């Protein structure tokens, strides 16, 4: 699969996220984010525009807006900063694998919907990524093998895997991949630990976390 396609434009159609409650109350954000600190509002607006709805986890993070602000900035830096070399689509495919391997139902469902909505992927395309059937070349295989092993068991990443990654990617690109692994490990851990409730637009993809690889990688 080629990964250079630009994402679809961000949406102005805001979907209802539904009313599933979390284990603690959501922080009040207001009808139009009026309860969100003004300097954090642009980050939330961009999140909503990108996702098409306000994710429940963001309403949980907003109990600590001074920390949430940096999580949103880190998300942007890792996934879509214009200074990144690897494109956002490829990073979402890697993120999908990482979140599945970290057994995060919430993030996996979100990634599936993001890949479908922003890059027009069909269900079969996303399933092929989860099954390791869509690596375009050896370069992509090296990244997928690294992300897979690092997410399942970071201590099991071998010198051979690291060397292969360094052979195919620049040092900056290697760090971009490492940060994808680390960023989603953090989010996956938090969202799974909180049993973050899936929102209406993604609820149908709850069980995609169970799709396992069908092919060997690397």
């Amino acid at each position, binding site marked *: 699969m080629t990964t250079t396609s630009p994402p679809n434009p961000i949406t102005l159609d805001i979907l209802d996220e539904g009313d599933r409650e979390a284990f603690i109350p959501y922080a009040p954000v207001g009808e139009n984010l009026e309860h969100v600190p003004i300097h954090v509002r642009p980050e939330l607006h961009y999140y909503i525009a990108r996702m098409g709805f306000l994710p429940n986890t963001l309403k949980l993070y907003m109990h600590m807006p001074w920390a949430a602000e940096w999580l949103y900035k880190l998300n942007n830096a890792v996934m879509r900063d214009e200074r990144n070399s690897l494109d956002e689509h490829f990073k979402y495919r890697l993120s999908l694998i990482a979140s599945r391997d970290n057994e995060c139902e919430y993030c996996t469902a979100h990634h599936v919907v993001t890949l479908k909505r922003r890059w027009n992927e069909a269900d079969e395309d996303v399933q092929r990524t989860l099954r*390791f059937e869509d690596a375009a070349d050896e370069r992509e295989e090296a990244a997928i093998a690294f992300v*897979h*092993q690092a997410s*399942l*068991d970071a*201590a*099991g990443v071998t010198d051979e895997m690291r060397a292969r990654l360094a052979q195919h990617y620049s040092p900056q690109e290697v760090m971009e991949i490492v940060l994808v692994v680390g960023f989603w490990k953090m989010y996956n851990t938090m969202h799974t630990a909180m049993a973050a409730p899936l929102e209406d637009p993604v609820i149908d993809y709850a069980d995609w976390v169970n799709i*396992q*690889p069908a*092919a060997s990688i690397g």
Partner: protein
Amino acid sequence: MSLPRWSADEMEQAIATGDAVLVDLRADWCPQCGPQERVLERVLPTFDERVRFGSVDVEVNTTVVDDYHVKGLPTLLVFRDRRHHSTLAGFKRAPEVRQALEAVLQA
């Protein structure tokens, strides 16, 4: 430490000793089996001399799949006193493997 490759007969011989035994069922095509083996290579030295361990390729030793009702790979089989003690189906992280081995040693 690398896992010895066992045939089905060698596996049964290990079980027949009555010692605690962990068997890693694997295949070359299985994408989770490499990561699983690397977890075991790290965990098992702690249990050296208390647990016998080896890996069995189910593509070569096909009878194992039916004998132990294996539904997917990787699968870890744990034995003690010549009896099947537990099955760990799917990739297992180090704490889960340690827990299973501690459980069989305390049984």
